[in-house]
């Protein structure tokens, strides 16, 4: 890939706070798909539509899907089964089968057993057999997540957090949708924060870290609850690592941001889009013409190349 492409975006977010203009620029790529590669604190983003070659090869590639909201049947998308299936078809059509999938929550819309079952059935059709989940707030309704844990909580700690290693990359799945307080944002809680500290204590600083959780760990738009109260504390624990990638869902649109060694990324929903921050009265489902819907839904492909500074994150729409 040439480093001087005409459609290359260079976004340097290497300072504190949110570079709103920066991430809005990134959002402009949503729907058409974007490849973002972080090098030395600078995010390089390429429009997928302008890429002619194949995707970068690496030691590890996996796919993130999010917010399938099984059971949702309102005007914004009356066929969430069809669009989740389209996402799986897209994954199955990748040149090489990804090692595994991450589902970053809101698997279901109303935490109903049949909704969980339907998603399980559809995911079985994917070439990537292993799926690692974290819950969204829609998966823990009425029972504080008991059913979710029974289904997807094998080998987890506390409210469902866990970690695992794949080809030298350390993955940390976090839960920030339980015990939410009035007026507040997503919450990890002191028990989970202590666990993260212990979990990464013995890792080498050169180990690439991937953190995944439902609600963004960074403050995307607190006015709509798009952030995590104690997310910064979790990230402070990971400061010593050279490469940290944070993958979230919840906001039903893709966004990226870089702060120091941390790359933040949110995935599109497979079910329905939500408005860009502050552009509507509320973050409710966005109704778009049927022919446009699939351009706003999608999957995220993540590629890890050993020796590179960061992971390459590629979004593609279902269209």
């Amino acid at each position, binding site marked *: 890939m040439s480093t001087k492409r005409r459609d290359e975006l260079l976004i340097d977010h290497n300072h504190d706070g949110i570079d709103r203009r920066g991430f809005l620029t990134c959002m402009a790529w949503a729907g058409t798909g974007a490849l973002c590669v972080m090098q030395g604190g600078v995010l390089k983003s390429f429009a997928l539509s302008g890429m002619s070659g194949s995707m970068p090869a690496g030691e590890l590639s996996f796919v993130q899907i999010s917010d399938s909201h099984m059971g949702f049947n309102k005007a*914004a998308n009356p066929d969430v089964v069809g669009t989740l299936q389209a996402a799986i078809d897209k994954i199955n059509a990748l040149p090489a089968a990804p090692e595994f999938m991450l589902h970053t929550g809101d698997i279901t819309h109303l935490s109903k057993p049949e909704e969980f079952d339907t998603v399980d059935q559809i995911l079985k059709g994917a070439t990537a057999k292993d799926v690692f989940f974290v819950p969204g*707030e*829609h998966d823990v309704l009425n029972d504080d997540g008991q059913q979710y844990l029974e289904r997807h909580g094998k080998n987890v700690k506390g409210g469902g957090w866990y970690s695992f290693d794949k080809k030298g990359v350390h993955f940390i799945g976090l839960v920030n949708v339980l015990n939410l307080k*009035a*007026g507040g*944002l997503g919450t990890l809680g002191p028990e989970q924060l202590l666990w993260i500290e212990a979990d990464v204590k013995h890792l080498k600083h050169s180990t690439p870290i991937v953190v995944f959780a439902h609600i963004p760990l960074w403050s995307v738009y*607190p006015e709509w609850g798009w952030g995590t109260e104690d997310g910064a504390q979790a990230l402070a624990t990971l400061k010593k690592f050279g490469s940290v990638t944070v993958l979230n869902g919840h906001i039903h649109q893709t966004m990226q941001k870089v702060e120091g060694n941390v790359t933040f990324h949110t995935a599109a929903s497979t079910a329905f889009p939500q408005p860009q921050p502050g552009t509507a*009265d509320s973050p*409710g*489902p966005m109704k778009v013409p049927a022919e446009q819907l699939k351009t706003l839904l999608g999957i995220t492909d993540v590629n890890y190349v050993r020796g590179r500074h960061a992971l390459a994150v590629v979004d593609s729409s279902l269209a």
Partner: protein
Amino acid sequence: MKRSVAMVIVLVALGLVVTGPRADMGEAPPATEVRIDNFSFGPAELTVRVGTTVKWTNRDDIPHTVVSTDKVFKSKVLDTDETFSFTFSVAGTYPYFCSIHPKMTGQVVVQ
């Protein structure tokens, strides 16, 4: 626990006795419905008399809950057009929120 339940029952009974005659005096009954629209409770603040039943209706395409901050009441998840009702038997201020979208807050003042 049992004692507080008994207390509530007694107060409900008292509330009925007190509010009954007032209604006969032709006063307009206070609003007792809260609509959940666009990720907000409307009205966000509601003042009612002791013994009033307040009904919440979810008008959004997204499910919400109605949960008392002080754990006095808690709805199941409300899908579109589903409702939750609670009878306020004791005077006081009852802050509440949506436990799924905690930025959504409201308050019922019972006099």
